[in-house]
């Protein structure tokens, strides 16, 4: 069971590699912001599953903070775009 959690935690990051490519290539800032948002969701899931694998509940709080504050990063980029500050 715990090995399955580790496998899925690694696979969650592995399937998000196209998002990293889009973040590197992305022609506009919006593309990069969308890819960053999606990748942070994947990273949150990976952290949750890794904490279940390692039986360390302290990693759960890292995942919780990641999921609640990655959204602020995307929103800040959107506001900057909307005010035409970029």
């Amino acid at each position: 069971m715990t090995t399955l959690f580790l496998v899925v935690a690694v696979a969650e990051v592995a399937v998000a590699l196209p998002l990293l490519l889009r973040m590197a290539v992305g022609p506009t800032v919006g593309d990069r912001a969308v890819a960053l948002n999606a990748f942070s969701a994947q990273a949150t899931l990976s952290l949750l599953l890794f904490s279940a694998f390692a039986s360390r509940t302290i990693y759960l709080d890292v995942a919780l903070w990641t999921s609640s504050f990655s959204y602020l990063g995307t929103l800040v980029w959107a506001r900057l775009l909307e005010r035409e500050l970029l």
Partner: protein
Amino acid sequence: MVGLLCAVGLFFSLSGAVGVWRMPDLYTRIQASTKTITLGALPVLVALVVGTGVLTPYTSRAVLVAFLLLVLNPAASHAVARASYKTGTPQWKGAVAHEPDREQPS
């Protein structure tokens, strides 16, 4: 059961990532990302709850993360789409609706 739920979540996450990489313009990429990211996250969180037991710290954090993803992810994607549309990010050439002069409620 846990393996099946994880497989479903991984499949939707992979399809979302491939959609973000392959779609032709920003708006279709947002559409691919939002739908499949939320749909790919929830089965994995349910698998975590099923695999670790209900009355554990994992369950409470999984429920919190699911709530945050369901509320904040569409809001962030909407903000990015709105800002990009206002600043005139180019659309795919096959797009059928583009009304830049239309009065938008702010």
